[in-house]
């Protein structure tokens, strides 16, 4: 016992250290997020939070579940591999509505829509079909002659309302 006779101050000091360490553990328990370190040096719960972001583009499988007639038409034409929402925009609101007919998608204006891809430019790949809209259609909407879901003139049967393609349009297309 004589060894510890004058060691009281050391034990008090050691006690302080132990107490500080316990306080550190308690504070750490409350400050560090619960899932921190589950997979690595980050909060694992963040992964679930990021995955909870709402979906805006429904995906073409969802569209085709109801609009199989349009999907069939499209699958036979040049635009077979163009997804629905590439032209029609994000439609998850429409697709996920209890009654989809209440959220009516806006029909795209073909004058602007088609030109985004098909306006002729030296920068585009040479084998991509492209026209100078002003020469090709004189400002008429593209769907006057072409059906966007199956755009080739010979493949598509134009609507009864559609005009027969005039010569200049045909020539412009042939030249390209």
């Amino acid at each position, binding site marked *: 016992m004589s060894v510890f006779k004058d060691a009281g101050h050391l034990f008090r000091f050691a006690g302080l250290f132990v107490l500080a360490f316990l306080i550190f553990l308690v504070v750490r328990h409350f400050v560090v*997020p*619960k*899932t*921190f370190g589950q*997979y*690595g*040096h*980050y*909060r694992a*719960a*963040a*992964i*679930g*939070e*990021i*995955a*909870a*972001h*709402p*979906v*805006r*583009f429904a*995906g*073409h499988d969802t569209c085709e579940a109801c609009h199989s007639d349009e999907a069939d038409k499209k699958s036979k034409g040049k*635009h077979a*591999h*163009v*997804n629905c*929402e*590439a*032209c029609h*925009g*994000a439609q998850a609101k429409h697709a996920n509505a209890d009654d989809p007919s209440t959220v009516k998608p806006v029909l795209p204006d073909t004058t602007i829509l088609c030109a*985004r*891809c098909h*306006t*002729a*430019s*030296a*920068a*585009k*790949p040479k084998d*991509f079909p492209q026209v100078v809209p002003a020469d090709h259609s004189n400002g008429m909407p593209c769907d006057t002659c072409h059906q966007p879901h199956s755009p080739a003139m010979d493949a598509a049967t134009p609507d009864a309302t559609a005009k027969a393609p005039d010569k200049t349009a045909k020539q412009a297309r042939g030249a390209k």
Partner: protein
Amino acid sequence: MNINRRQMLILLPAAAVAWKSVLAGTPEVSPNYHMTDHWWGMLIDIPKCIGCGNCVRACQTENDVPDGFFRTWVERYHVDDWEMKNPQDILVNPMTDPTVISPDGGKEGFPVATDTSGKYFFVPKMCNHCADSPCTQVCPVGATFVAPDGVVLVDQKYCLGCAYCVQACPYGCRYIHPEKHVADKCTLCYHRITKGLTTACCEACPTGARQLVDLKNPKDPIHEFMKTHSLQVLKPQMATGAKAFYNGLDGSVR
């Protein structure tokens, strides 16, 4: 209330299980999704890109990207014809000094190119979801990380907005969100791919120039594509383990 030993033995593990579920935080949104089954990346097929900007607009719609900031953007390169007339011309080699434009990230497409000389191509850019990403390594608080499925994500509740990661990214793919004041970037549409959908940019691409790839899925067409094509990543000298694979990438792309 009196609880005997038997009830206590049943109650304690039950309480432990309940407490565990409380600690687990946000429950898994997609119960059928297992992170360890995937290793995500992106295939970008340069010869197919027509520069329509559909991907940029789709990304903005899907992810509420603020105007003037981009999680993905498209650049148009123009490498002029080169005719060396004197030895000094080597300093202005168009191959090492291409003309690059990206008006508003290519969101509304590109001006019509009338100069038919040289070669043009479009390069869609985005987060490369690097396996050894510099951006996650510099984060001082552990707010950005490579998830177990290979997607580089930002924990926006934990981020301080110090912008170290913005500087660290060699591809310029990160920005500080002007309203949230935290780092923001492409999540590879994590909320979509965990539900079996493709990313918004791939969904909206009319020519199939962008393809989401899952390197851990043996049936993914990327494996066949890699065997038959020469793919490249951006800045391979940075050794970032980039997973945005480019087909037909020109040497002038920086």
